[in-house]
C-alpha cells in the first residue's frame, strides 16, 4: 500500500510539473503480462535479478512493469532526466528503482556528454529493453539479454554523432561503476551481490532501413554470496588455496561484447545479435545469439525467434579435493545455463499507443545443462524441453 501510494505520488507531482512548464516533460510506459510454464518443477524468469519465476500457473511477475520518466530542459544545451521503474525485483518486491538519473550537456549539435546514472549500452536494444511497446516480441530473448545482471551504471558517457558517407554514426564511450544483485538459478534463488568498474564503447550505424551495432564493455568485477564464501573458506581450510582462488570472484577482469543488426522497411522486420560474455569462477563464459523475423500485416505482426546460449568454459573442475568436489562442481554446473529456444508470436496494434502480444516458446536445455536458464533443483535430474506461453499488453504514455 505504501509503495503504491509512493508511485502515484510521484506521478501526481510530475504531472503537475508538466502542466506548468513547457520545458518539463513526463512520459511513461507500462506492461501488464502473464506467463505460464508447462511444469511446476521449474520457474521462468525474464531477468537474473528476479529471485523466482513463473511455474505452471499464470504469473504476472516476469514481465509486468510501470515506468515513469521526467525530463527538464534548463536550456538548449542542458537537460536532466530521471527514470523510475517498478517491477518484480531481486528483493521479491515491486518497489521502484531509479534506473536512470543524469544530466545531459550538448557541447555542440553533434557532441553531448552525460553524467549520473546511465543505461549500460551492452545490447542492440539496451536503451529500450524496459519499454516493451517499442519491441516486436514480448521481451528481449533471455538467452542473450539475461547474460548480464547490470542494466545501468553510475558514471559518464558521451554521444558523438557523425556521418560516414551516408551512414549516420553514433559513437558512445562510457566509464563508471555499478553495484548489482542477482539470484542464482537454483530453486531457492540464492542471492549474490557484486560491484563492477565498467568502461567501454558502443557504436551504432544507421543507413536507410538498416541499423548496425558493435560494442565492448570491459569490467573489473567482484561478486559475493553466502554459499560461495563458505565454499571458499572451506577450501582454504583444507589447503586447496588455488581452487579457492579460482572460485573467488574478486576484482576479476570480465568482458561483454557483441554485434547486432536490424532491418525494418516498415513491413519486413529482421533483427539479430551475437554476444560474448567472458567471466570467471562460477559464472561461465557464454556465447549467445538470436535471430528474429517478422512481417507486418496492417495492425498484426506475426514473428518468430530462434535463440541460443552456450556455456563455453569448463563447468566442472577435476582438481577439487573430494569432500568439497560435489559442492563446487554443483555450483559450476548450475552456472551452465546453456539452452536454445524457438518462439512464435503475434503483435497486435489494436489501439493508439497500446499493443497486445502473445508468444509461445519451446525451451530446450542444451550442452549438458540441467535446466538451461530456468530456475530448477538440479538434484531432480535433467529437465526436459518445456513450453512457455506469455500474453502481454504494452503501452507508452
Amino acid at each position: 500500500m505504501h509503495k503504491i501510494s509512493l508511485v502515484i505520488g510521484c506521478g501526481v507531482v510530475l504531472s503537475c510539473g508538466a502542466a506548468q512548464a513547457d520545458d518539463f516533460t513526463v512520459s511513461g510506459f507500462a506492461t501488464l503480462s502473464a506467463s505460464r510454464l508447462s511444469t511446476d518443477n521449474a520457474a521462468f524468469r525474464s531477468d537474473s535479478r528476479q529471485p523466482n519465476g513463473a511455474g505452471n500457473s499464470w504469473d504476472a511477475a516476469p514481465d509486468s512493469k510501470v515506468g515513469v520518466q521526467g525530463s527538464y530542459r534548463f536550456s538548449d544545451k542542458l537537460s536532466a532526466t530521471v527514470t523510475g521503474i517498478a517491477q518484480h525485483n531481486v528483493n521479491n518486491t515491486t518497489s521502484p528503482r531509479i534506473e536512470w538519473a543524469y544530466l545531459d550537456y550538448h557541447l555542440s549539435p553533434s557532441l553531448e556528454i552525460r553524467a549520473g546514472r546511465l543505461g549500460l549500452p551492452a545490447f542492440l536494444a539496451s536503451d529500450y529493453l524496459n519499454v516493451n511497446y517499442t519491441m516486436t516480441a514480448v521481451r528481449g530473448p533471455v538467452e542473450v539479454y539475461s547474460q548480464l545482471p547490470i542494466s545501468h551504471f553510475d558514471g559518464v558517457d558521451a554521444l558523438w554523432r557523425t556521418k560516414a558517407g551516408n551512414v549516420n554514426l553514433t559513437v558512445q564511450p562510457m566509464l563508471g561503476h555499478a553495484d548489482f544483485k542477482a539470484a542464482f538459478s537454483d530453486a531457492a534463488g540464492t542471492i549474490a551481490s557484486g560491484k563492477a568498474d565498467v568502461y567501454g564503447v558502443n557504436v551504432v550505424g544507421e543507413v536507410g532501413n538498416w541499423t548496425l551495432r558493435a560494442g565492448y564493455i570491459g569490467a573489473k568485477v567482484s561478486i559475493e554470496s553466502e554459499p560461495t564464501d563458505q565454499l571458499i573458506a572451506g577450501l582454504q581450510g583444507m589447503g586447496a588455496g588455488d581452487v579457492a582462488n579460482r572460485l573467488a570472484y574478486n576484482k576479476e577482469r570480465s568482458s561483454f561484447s557483441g554485434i547486432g543488426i536490424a532491418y525494418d522497411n516498415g513491413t519486413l522486420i529482421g533483427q539479430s545479435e551475437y554476444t560474448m560474455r567472458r567471466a570467471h569462477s562460477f559464472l561461465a563464459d557464454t556465447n549467445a545469439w538470436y535471430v528474429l523475423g517478422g512481417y507486418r500485416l496492417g495492425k498484426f505482426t506475426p514473428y518468430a525467434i530462434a535463440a541460443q546460449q552456450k556455456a563455453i568454459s569448463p563447468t566442472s573442475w577435476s582438481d577439487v579435493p573430494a569432500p568439497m568436489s560435489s559442492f563446487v562442481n554443483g555450483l559450476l554446473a548450475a552456472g551452465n545455463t546453456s539452452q536454445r529456444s524457438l518462439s512464435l508470436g503475434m503483435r497486435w496494434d489494436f489501439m493508439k499507443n497500446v499493443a497486445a502480444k502473445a508468444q509461445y516458446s519451446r525451451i530446450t536445455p542444451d550442452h549438458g545443462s540441467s535446466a538451461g536458464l530456468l530456475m530448477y533443483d538440479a538434484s531432480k535430474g535433467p529437465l526436459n524441453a518445456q513450453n512457455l506461453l506469455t500474453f502481454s499488453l504494452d503501452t507508452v504514455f
Partner: protein
Amino acid sequence: MKFTAKILLAAIACTSLAYADVVVIVSSKSSVAALSKEQVADLYLGKSQELGGGSAVLFDLSDDSIKNVFYDKATGRSLSQIKATWSKLLFNGKGLPPKEAANPAELKKAIAANPNAVGYLDSSAVDASVKVVLKLD
C-alpha cells in the same frame, strides 16, 4: 453547443478528405532550399538531427489524418510504428519526439520564427512565411 460540435466534426471530416498534397516546410529564413524524401524520413525517424548545419527542430500536427498521410508518404510507416520508434529515442534520452502544433496556423507561426524548424502541411495552407522544401505525393 452540441450542434456546433457536429458542425466542427463535419468540417474536420471534410478537410481530412480534401488533403491532396502534403508538403514539407521550413522557415522562409532557413538556408535550406530543398530536402529529399530520404532526408525527411531520416529526420522524422530520429536517425538524423542535422539540418542546414544546425540541430533540426521537428514539428508534428496534432491532427491524426494529415499526420497519417505525411508519415505514410515520407517514411512508409504507420502512426503506431512511429510511436514505437520515437518511444525508443525518448526513453533512451537520445532524442525528443517532434513538438505538436494544435493547428496549421500555429505550426506556420512556430516554423516561421525558427530557422531550424521543420514541419508539414496541406499544400493549400502554405503562405509566404514558410518555404516548401519537399512535395509528397
